[in-house]
């Protein structure tokens, strides 16, 4: 197992370098460059400044040289400074956005899993019942509802009409002047709508997956056997079936790890949440290569780690894989 993990880990290194190289080439190929956005389409803008910045950013070098320079710094975890006029270090920029996105996505994930598992299990065990049909309709409506539209409707209802919840942002403007508990409540109330919207959309896929996985498992012989042994339905489903049905779900969860730091552009924009999604999109639009690359490295690393974790946990929870591996050796 340890050897397996180590080998997988060593393989990830060239893979990561490959990913960053391809990403670097692709973003450089995108039409336009950082200078098109720094120097406006304006008769008074000076051409000499443009040339100077191109040199300063190293954009006059051939692409493999540029990449090599970037890589040399990146291995020392120096991702450089943003090309934008604020010129701040990439890691600072990412660092101030990451916590919000991570926090939101973790809560969201917990709620989705917490709701999707029972929904999926119940619909599977009562396949084609009224409950199954209602939840099916519900999750498909959730799946089909554009989240920006749902967000606006909820904002109008709870923010404008009823005035119960704040419309956008993360904190009230007088946050510093509130007491500790008021601050917590203020923060929480700002989170309600974005989390509800994000969860509503994400619930569908996950609960469907759970239902499908459960449906397959309950048809297995060992479930029959468990029933035949005279075990109560609760034990049959809750212990014998659910454990096995959760296996694929673990993989999905692990693979969702990189998504945790991605952030949703739409939700972040509409609720004015300064998270990773917005940062990524803005840096792509303004061709801010250092920030884009910094972001990509983090996402790529997490994806690789997630794959690794998925493989390992799979081995841990599924004896077939564990023993299968041993026999081969």
């Amino acid at each position: 197992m340890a050897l397996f993990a180590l080998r997988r880990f060593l393989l990830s290194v060239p893979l990561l370098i490959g990913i960053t190289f391809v990403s670097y080439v692709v973003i450089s190929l995108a039409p336009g460059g950082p200078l098109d956005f720094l120097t406006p389409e304006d008769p008074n803008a000076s051409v000499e400044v443009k040339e100077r910045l191109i040199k300063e950013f190293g954009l006059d070098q051939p692409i493999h040289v540029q990449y090599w320079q970037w890589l040399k710094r990146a291995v020392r975890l120096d991702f450089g400074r943003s090309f934008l006029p604020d010129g701040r270090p990439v890691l600072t920029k990412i660092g101030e956005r990451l916590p919000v996105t991570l926090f939101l996505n973790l809560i969201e994930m917990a709620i989705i899993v917490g709701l999707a598992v029972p929904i999926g299990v119940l619909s599977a065990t009562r396949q084609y019942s009224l409950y199954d049909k209602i939840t099916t309709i519900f999750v498909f409506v959730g799946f089909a509802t554009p989240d920006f539209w749902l967000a606006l409707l909820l904002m109008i209802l709870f923010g404008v009409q009823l005035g119960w919840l704040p419309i956008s942002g993360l904190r009230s403007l007088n946050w510093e002047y509130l007491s500790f508990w008021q601050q917590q409540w203020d923060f929480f109330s700002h989170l309600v709508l974005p989390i509800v919207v994000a969860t509503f959309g994400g619930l569908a896929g996950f609960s469907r997956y759970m239902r499908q996985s459960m449906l397959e498992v309950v048809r297995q012989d060992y479930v029959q056997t468990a029933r035949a042994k005279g075990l109560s339905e609760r034990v049959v489903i809750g212990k014998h079936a659910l454990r096995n049905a959760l296996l694929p779900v673990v993989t999905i969860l692990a693979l969702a790890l990189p998504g945790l730091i991605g952030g949703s552009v739409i939700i972040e924009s509409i609720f004015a949440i300064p998270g990773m999604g917005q940062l990524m999109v803005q840096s792509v639009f303004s061709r801010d290569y250092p920030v884009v690359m910094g972001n990509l490295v983090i996402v790529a690393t997490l994806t690789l780690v997630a794959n690794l974790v998925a493989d390992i946990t799979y081995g841990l929870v599924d004896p077939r894989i564990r023993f299968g591996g041993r026999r081969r050796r």
Partner: protein
Amino acid sequence: MPRRRARGRSLLVWAGCGLLAAACNGPIESVSDDSATAGGAPAYGDTFIQASIGDIGGLIPSLTSDQSSHEVGSLIYDGLVKLDRDLNMVPAMAESWTYSRDCLELTFKLRRDVKWHDGRSFTADDVVFTYQTMINPKTPAPFKEGFLLVKDMEAPDPYTVRVRYAKPYARAVETWGTYILPKHLLQSFAEAGTLRESPQNSRPVGTGPYLFQEWKPGEKVVLVANPNYYEGRPYLSRIVYRVIPSQATIFLELKANGVDYVSTLTGIQYARQTEYPAFRKAYHKFRYPASDYTFLGFNLRDPRFADRRVRQAFAHAISKQELIDGVRLGLAREATGPIRPGTWAYTDQVERFAYDPAKAKVLLAEAGWKDRDGDGVVEDREGKPFTLTIRTNQGNDERKKIAEIVQQRLKEIGIQADIQLIEWAAFIKEFVKPRRFEVVVLGFGTGTDPDQFVVWHSSQRGPDQMNRTGYADPEVDALLEAGRMSCVQSERVRYYHRLQEILAHDLPMIFLYNRDALPVVAARIRGVSPAPAGILHNLTEWYVPKQQQRYTSG
């Protein structure tokens, strides 16, 4: 607080879509249940919350070209001169200025009571330092032209600066509306070319009416009133720029009274969605011409459009009022030329072309375009039909609608037009710059100075230059040169009036309309005084009467 759009910045932004400080050729309207200026004694305090769709780029605005950075920057920094409510240059940190007789030497006397936010005195050294920084090749400032024309500059004493020019430069004074930078904090960074990385770019020290307090990227910028401001402490204690990247969310925040100011509503929002009693009670709406114009531009290299009669036929075929009503819900004014209405150089005494399709057909016939085969489309003598493509950029609904209406109107006079919408970058790169277009619908931002040399002078017709219609006229060339070289406003007025007459007659483009800026301000805010410069020009005088203040904790 005047919006110093002019400070060494854009004279013209090609297709600029910013609706900002504006001038006025018609009545400035304030729509509300009670007057914006009435009631309550001026009092210090309260927080003023502005919604901004984009975050600021940085806090040394000279290095940025985005609107938000300049809005925030103009409250933190000051220039030697500024624009007043009527868009005239008036002293700010300078007490006065004088020109030498030959227009080549400009001398500023500086105020002695100006202090940097950290307590240091502001002196002529800071002005000279700002100049040196701007012309330093290591400084990545997008707008330097005004500074590069300076021959030399000196400070004979701590409160005098003298600037010399090699040639007279009409916009010399305007250049010194630039953000003056603190020498004592920035010298080493400016010399090393690392201004962007300096602390000043994240915690700026200026001389303006507001002190910087906090910038949370992507979230907000907070400014607090400068108690030692040389023109007196501003009334509003705090100004918060909230970054809200979605237009829909901004509007909902407005409806829920979450923001106090939005720089421009859409036409629908202004005309319909805000017309209910609660909104009218909570906000004052304003309406005045924005500083840009929308036009239909011809490619004069195309032999068909080289004939003025054809251009005039187009002008008669199009009803500007119809476009304004259909596209802007009436919230725009007919444009007569490229100069910003309300500024001293503007005149509306120019030739106009009424909607008259019959006359348009006669003009086309005179130019040799007749419907020879009876298919409804006019042909030239060889029988080639008059077809063309109207091009504009994708994602601008207004321009798309203009193209559609114009297409319909052209059909009436026998011209068959197609419409092509192209993504912005590709549009400029593939069509506009290489001059591969027939007719385009675009917009132009206008500065406060009337100098339009780069747009109309015949020397500016190269691929990367701004004379994109390819217009060339010897008299216009002479007027543009003279207007640029003079420092006497009464002379310049004559040149630019004549320029507008010629352009209106020659029709290198059809000036369609000046859009209206449609800002809203919370009703509790008093002292708002709409003027040709817009409404933000006297922000430091805005106040909220004590009993109506909302954010008292700050």
